[in-house]
């Protein structure tokens, strides 16, 4: 064997060995998967909606907006119910009881309490739930969607509330919630094909720095004796340092000699003479049902108008010093996201109708202030919409408040019939939970509002 052939054979043998070692876990996983598949019942796709017998609900909700199911829909669900009932007898127990006898949640399982768990949820089919959070679904399809954690930078001067921070939120078949961190705001819901999905909201940034102090008290005589101040001054060489450092002169700030700002302010007060003093009163209330800060079409009607781009973006201006790419995004399934600071001249999104099985619950959150001092109150508004073509049930909205936000008792309200529950969380604050009573029809939505005091 020549030297060249020997070297070539060594390299080839190494490559084969490395390839075998890399593929070994995959092969083992495949074998295990094949073995386990014998005891697992795979979900089957529900019958496709017939557009003629089951017309899609219109945008304004006139048709199909009632909570009762139409005759065609009942047949559609009964067909699926028979197959699910057959599966329910199996030992593994698949599927949610989405056509149970509950009247409040017609077509969906009953809520049986909830609990918060640490760690990640076990992804097993016996739970009857397939945890596929919306954010993850969308990230896999298009990296420009929100909830990309790499783009959500943080600053120590801000309070954040919203989005799905750190661990991914999951909800299993027993209503246990996994991976919920402080600041998380999300909604979870059940679909008619047996999925329980999680949909996080956007993140709200509120500028609210807080300060503390560290003190040291020195007795001058003792300090001078022990630390030898005289020698320290020589060693420090402050004068020489300034002289030798050429860059200090270029960056040195120059103290101001005059204070023109104060003079201008005094002159302005003299000109007004108190006649227009009523104009400086702050707005305390409005006659409309919506507050001034939430007077967006997105909050009112669930539609985004490009004319509101500047106002929507105002809340994000502050954080742009730290994060350049962050912006409020309005998006729908399989539709290119519209970033409000984009130059694309999209006029209006009326509605989104899809005919496949994917369900989307859009959760949008806004705050009444972009900055708040400790002790001041901030009002939050959450708008949630069912963007899918089918009803979603057991819609639950959860806001896990951070330690800087204290819920104002009695301030929570919801435009739909809902059960409000608040529990203590690890951050010495509260976890707010709204359980919407009735299923959410396609194109329908609701508004939640509550107050928090910054502390």
């Amino acid at each position, binding site marked *: 064997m020549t*030297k060249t052939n*020997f070297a070539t054979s060594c390299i080839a043998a190494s490559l084969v060995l490395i390839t075998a070692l890399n593929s070994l876990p995959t092969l083992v996983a495949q074998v295990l998967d094949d073995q386990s598949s014998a005891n697992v019942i795979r979900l089957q796709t529900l019958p496709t909606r017939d557009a003629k017998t089951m017309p899609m609900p219109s945008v304004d*909700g006139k048709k199909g907006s009632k909570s009762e199911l139409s005759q065609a829909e009942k047949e559609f669900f009964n067909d699926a119910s028979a197959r699910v009932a057959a599966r329910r007898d199996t030992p593994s127990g698949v599927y949610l009881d989405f056509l149970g006898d509950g009247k409040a949640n017609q077509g969906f399982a009953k809520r049986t309490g909830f609990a918060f768990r640490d760690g990640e949820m076990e992804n097993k089919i016996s739970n009857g739930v397939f945890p596929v959070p919306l954010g993850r679904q969308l990230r896999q399809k298009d990296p420009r969607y929100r909830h990309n954690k790499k783009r959500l930078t943080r600053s*120590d*001067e*801000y*309070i*954040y509330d919203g989005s799905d921070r750190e661990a991914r939120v999951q909800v299993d078949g027993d209503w246990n919630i996994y991976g919920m961190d402080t600041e998380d705001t999300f909604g979870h819901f059940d679909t008619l094909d047996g999925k329980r999905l999680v949909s996080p909201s956007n993140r709200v940034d509120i*500028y609210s*720095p*807080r*300060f*503390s*102090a*560290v*003190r*040291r*008290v*020195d*007795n*001058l005589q003792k300090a001078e004796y022990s630390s030898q101040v005289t020698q320290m001054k020589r060693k*420090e060489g402050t004068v020489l340092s*300034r002289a030798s*450092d050429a*860059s*200090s002169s270029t*960056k040195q*700030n120059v*103290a*101001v*000699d005059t*204070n023109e*700002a104060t003079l201008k302010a005094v002159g302005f007060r003299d000109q007004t003479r108190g006649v227009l003093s009523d104009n400086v009163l*702050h707005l*305390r209330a*409005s006659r409309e*049902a*919506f*507050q001034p800060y939430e007077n967006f079409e997105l909050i*009112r*009607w*669930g539609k985004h108008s490009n004319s509101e781009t500047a106002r929507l973006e105002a809340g994000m*201006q*502050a954080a742009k010093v730290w994060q350049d790419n962050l912006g409020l995004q309005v998006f729908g399934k399989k539709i290119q996201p519209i970033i409000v600071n984009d130059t694309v001249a999209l006029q209006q999104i009326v509605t989104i109708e899809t005919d496949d099985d994917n369900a989307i619950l859009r959760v949008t959150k806004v705050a009444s202030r*972009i*900055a708040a*001092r*400790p*002790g*001041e109150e901030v*009002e939050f508004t959450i708008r949630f919409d069912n963007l899918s073509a089918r009803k979603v049930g057991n819609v639950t909205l959860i806001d896990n408040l*951070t*330690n800087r936000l204290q819920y104002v008792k009695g301030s929570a*309200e919801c*435009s739909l019939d809902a059960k409000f529950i608040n529990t203590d969380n690890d951050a*010495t604050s509260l976890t707010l939970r709204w359980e919407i009573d009735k299923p959410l029809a396609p194109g329908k*939505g609701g*508004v939640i509002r509550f*107050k928090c005091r910054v*502390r």
Partner: protein
Amino acid sequence: MAYLKSPISLWLKFALLLVTLLSQCWVCTGDTAQAQLTRDHQLLNSKMPPGIVSQRKLMGNARLVGHTQPVRIIAPDGSRVAIVAGGGTTEANKSRVTVGVQAGLLYRFRVDFVDIETPRTVYPSVEIVDRLYTPKGLENQFPVPVVITENDLAQASGGKMVTKVIYLERSESTVPRRPIETDQPWFDVRGGEDPLHVASSLGRPLAILRIGSRVPTAGELAGPSAFDSSRPVVLPDPVERLPSQTIKLTDQTR
């Protein structure tokens, strides 16, 4: 087996020996390298002469150049705060004053107070070592609060030197407290610790306050740079905002 005696087998043996030696060196030196990385070495400390820390920070942070940072000096009720600059002091009629200061410069104030029926005066100095990134237009509403407590004044008037580092807390690790402007939490560091270093471990240091008991002479105050101080910009006080009125939500959604 003739190829085992070939030169390439020697190269393979040499490579194996080299890999073994390198791995052993890495294992042996790992702990030492780790210990060196965790050793704390601070270039700046609060024992430096007033203004030096701010100058060093200015040279290292381009965002401090030309930036005027609002600072609110908050003294106890009943005391009076004046600005020492330009060969004199401003009129002292309030216990709180809001000014705009810059990094690299030292600012000095005069605080008149009464210590057990004895009127006293101290000349605290303030230097900033970092800045805030407040949203545009709200800079004056969120100044850095430099709170001077009665205990600070009592210690200083008793002949001691008070060094206080005001730092920005991390929002995630804060504990709830009363939202009162004068109620700024503080604690004394242990012996041997530097407040600037302790503040850096807890958050982001923003300002250093020093209060001593020495009263400058008339000659020191008369110069253009009175007592080695610069003139700050006087800013209006932050506006107190009223709480909004709650309006019940009705079903306005479709």
